[in-house]
């Protein structure tokens, strides 16, 4: 299992966390590479269907951030 890397589907709010992620990138902060980021217009756009869809497609984790 050593070469296994978690896939984490990540829903980020365009105005908040996406900005933070962007800033983190610009500032050259290091963070783990496991995230598959989906930008949403608002974290309230994320419906339970999305979260389930992520798990159904084999995501190991889901992170919703506003």
């Amino acid at each position, binding site marked *: 299992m050593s070469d296994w890397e978690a896939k984490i589907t990540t829903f980020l709010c365009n105005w908040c966390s996406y900005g933070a992620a962007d800033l983190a990138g610009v500032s050259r902060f290091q963070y783990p590479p496991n995230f598959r980021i989906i930008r949403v217009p608002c974290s309230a756009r994320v419906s*339970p*269907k999305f979260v*389930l*869809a992520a798990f*159904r497609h084999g995501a190991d984790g889901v992170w919703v951030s506003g």
Partner: protein
Amino acid sequence: MLRYTEKIQETAKRLLQEKRVDAFIGYGKGSVPMMNQPLMVSDPDRVDRLYWDNFCGLNLCNYLTKRTDKVGIVANGCNSRNIVTHIIENQIKRDQLYIVGIPCEGMIDHRAVMRAVKQKEILDIQQNGKTFVVKGADFEETFEKEKFLQSNCAVCIHRNPVIYDELLGDLVEEQTGVSPYQDVEKVEAMDPEKKQGFFTRLISRCIRCYACRNACPLCYCPTCFVDESRPQWVGKSSDPTDTLTFHFLRAYHCAGRCTDCGACERVCPMGISMRQFTKKLNKDCQELFSWEAGLTLDQRPPLDVYRPDDYNDFIK
């Protein structure tokens, strides 16, 4: 409970004659024991078909959605709570309704009765207050009603209608000391793997007939998520993951709205106890928001509103 039949008929007749309502929705006696038929009467001379007994477990609110006429409806505790939910969610207007309240003493679980007579064929049932007599071709047995209540009725603490224009009979004493969430707690105590096994087994029989969804008064969306094709959220075969997704999302759509009326379980042809999903959400709503659905017209359900003091421990 049988005593209500006559009163319902009288009331319906009066309402229809006085033209207070265009139609009256209640139950009719079914053609097989333990099955009753939802019925709508608009002719005052035909009210004799209305009926009430211990097997009126199907929720009549299904028949109110988007009606435009004035209707009378019989409502026990859970029916009335669903009427409230319907009004809050703008599926019908309060002034269209004439609610005939019935204090409920719980409905009998037909499956439990069948189990008790070892699945032998039941030809007739006589209901006498606290007991009932089951007759078959070669047996006759008397049972105590108390022990045969639908599992949601056994733990019900809202037997009296919460909203009505007229009440038939006296309010009944509400049950106290019941612990409604015992089974949920049992599951909560399991580790994830056990839980997975529990729910996989629970729904393994599901044939995806959607009786639970259609019997649920909350499920009135014009297009259900399972029917959407672009994107398709859930496959339509009897695949276990798809079935689990269906049950999960169906339950989730009822979060904070479910009144635990038990219609879903009652109608399931395969006897699946899908309240295991909704009850968890009811418990969460109770614990996090002190909310039970359908008790008041003045407040919106918790997932509908934002309050600064909402529980948010789960957010980092």
